[in-house]
């Protein structure tokens, strides 16, 4: 198996900063990864001539040809199951699930094989593969287009689960995910696909398994990821007017969890809340609240709060605004603490 770069293309030439969407950054990451390593192949539903329903694979088939990126039959278990076989051979497949809820047919392959193959074979059969999942809501999607499936994956040992919240991380983390020898569930918040940022490519941000303090503050730590990082930043802006200093941590990596960065922030502020779109009960925030409490109880002035979607199936487009956590809802939650005890 060759490990050399193909002659295809150089990495996106380092250029003057240009405004790039997250979808564009992901596209550039795929392009650069495919150019850097001919073991990288991309397939899924509509990823070829159409360029993916979110255009993340736009133009890649024209550049790399159908042996590197192609449309597969419409069957998610088949997509992930065959990607396992390709990774066993030595390829580095990057497959797309189109939408969160459409990944569920692949659940068995993900949980029974992607997560377990390396351990089962004592490391002899690693699976260097990436499963890209456009995730979460707030795009006016009909049913099955706005789920937040992260807790299904994070509760499965053997999977690495990451979710970028901005274009720079999207590029850097996808490159790192493709280079990783562990299988990675790469979750892409759909509502952030069109968010623009001025970027110079290729960009490398913090390592994929680290959280990042994206706004410093002294009174409260908001723990957010993917789409809710923006929500947390909005809350922090609004709180400033009320004299409240909020620190925002973008978790970036959901599994593994960066205890070090999170605990350092929580010990500084002594209060924390975790924000996500997914339902609360048994959700990812429960794990965050539990481990933050276990590790920092004696530094906390208040219980760790969860500001999340309701414990209901994801609503229809005209009702989703009532379900999603907003900056106001975050601030209202913080107001439930007894502040004078601090």
């Amino acid at each position, binding site marked *: 198996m060759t490990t050399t770069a193909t002659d295809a293309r150089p990495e996106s030439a380092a250029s003057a900063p240009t405004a790039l969407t997250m979808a564009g950054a992901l596209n550039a990451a795929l392009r650069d990864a495919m150019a850097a390593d001919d073991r990288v192949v991309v397939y899924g539903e509509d990823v070829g001539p159409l360029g993916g329903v979110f255009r993340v694979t736009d133009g890649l088939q024209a550049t790399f040809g159908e042996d590197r990126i192609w449309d597969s039959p419409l069957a998610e278990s088949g997509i992930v199951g065959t990607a396992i076989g390709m990774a066993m051979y030595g390829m580095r497949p990057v497959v797309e699930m189109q939408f969160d809820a459409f990944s569920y047919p692949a659940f068995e392959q993900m949980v*029974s094989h992607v997560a377990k193959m390396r351990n089962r074979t*004592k490391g002899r*059969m690693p699976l260097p593969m990436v499963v890209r999942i456009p995730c979460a809501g707030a795009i006016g999607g009909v049913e099955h287009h706005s789920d937040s499936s992260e807790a299904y994956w994070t509760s499965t040992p053997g999977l690495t689960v990451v979710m970028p919240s901005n274009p720079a991380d999207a590029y850097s983390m996808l490159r790192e995910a493709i280079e990783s020898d562990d299988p990675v569930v790469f979750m892409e918040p759909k509502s952030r696909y069109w968010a623009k940022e001025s970027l110079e490519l290729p960009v490398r941000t913090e390592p994929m398994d680290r959280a990042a303090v994206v706004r410093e503050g002294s009174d409260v730590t908001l723990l957010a990821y993917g789409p809710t990082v923006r929500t947390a930043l909005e809350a922090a802006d609004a709180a400033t007017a009320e004299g409240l200093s909020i620190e925002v941590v973008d978790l970036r990596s959901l599994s593994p969890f960066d205890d070090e960065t999170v605990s350092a922030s929580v010990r500084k502020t002594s209060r924390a809340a975790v924000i996500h779109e997914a339902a609360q009960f048994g959700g990812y925030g429960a794990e965050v609240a539990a481990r933050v409490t276990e590790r920092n109880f004696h530094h906390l002035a208040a219980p760790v709060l969860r500001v999340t979607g309701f414990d209901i199936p994801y609503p229809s487009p005209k009702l989703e605004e009532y379900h999603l956590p907003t900056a106001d809802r975050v601030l209202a939650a913080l107001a439930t603490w007894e502040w004078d005890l601090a």
Partner: protein
Amino acid sequence: MSLSVERPDTRTLPSQKPIRLLDNAGHAVHGSAAGGFELPDPATLLDLYRRMVVARRFDVQVTALTRQGRLATYPSALGQEACEIGAISALEARDWFFPTYRDSVALLTRGIAPGDILASFRGDWHNGYDQHAHRTASQATPLATQALHAVGLGHAARLRSDPIVALTMLGDGATSEGDAHEAFNFAAVWQTPTVFVVQNNQFAISVPLSRQTRAATLADKAVGYGMPGYHVDGNDVAAMYAVTQAAVERARSGGGPTLIEGLTYRIEAHTNSDDPTRYRAARDVEHWKCRDPIERLERYLVSEGALSEQVRTEIADAAEQVAADTREVMTAEAELDPLELFDHVYARPRAALREQRDRLEAELAETAAAAGGAR
């Protein structure tokens, strides 16, 4: 890739009468019943005979060891030796094999050591052999999931112009699983070098074939996916070998996948914890015991003068040696390190796992110290 690939008609249903090269009396079958396939030469048949005898001795030995409590469980392939050995013997060392939990005798035939095959059934680790060294994936427990892995690996090889074939075995029950259908379809659409061998042993634990499908044969399913399908006498090792070999050659030369159904019978229980008297009649088992795949080939070889008493003894001795080796390796307790539980989950080390490993290590040290103090 070769343009002169034989492309069988994929729109005609497979014969409902299983393809057969040797009948139960050990006579060579000719004409349409042979489906256009030729009886392998005597040397090949003798080799298949030897492999089946060794496989059965191993299988019987492992079942006995399981009853003695040396293994946690063992799914026997007794009676299915023609399917197992005929199919796997058509594969070359460079090819890949994707087995299920029932295919231990095929692993043995592929050269994997008894102790390495049985490490999982003994409960040491979920898999005990080197996948790459034997080009054999770990034995899949979730039904039909491994078929997709075979398709993916074959597709990757095809993209690299690497002329290898991936063969996967499935049971009759597994053909009801969605992954079987996705694998058939992906393989046909992508024209991957895949051979699907469905061992129709007529029971999925207790559920008979009639409750899995309304199709006349499981090979019929191939037609809907646009690939050739063959309904084969799965107790005729000559037919299983010939049909599989043709499928392997077609796959290797770019002709795409094939679905082969071997009609056979599971003589033993599903596993040692199963009670087959609850769902099938003893007379049915007796009926199938009278169609034994090894005795069938033996009759033919003897009638052809191709199996001398001396060779028969040599083969029996070799089989006894495998049984003795299996007893020996399974009687010794494996050295297990509980701390290894943390070693292979991720390539990139995790702080949380390291903490948990440290806790277990401390527990083990305390236990050892307590045991030392009590002495």
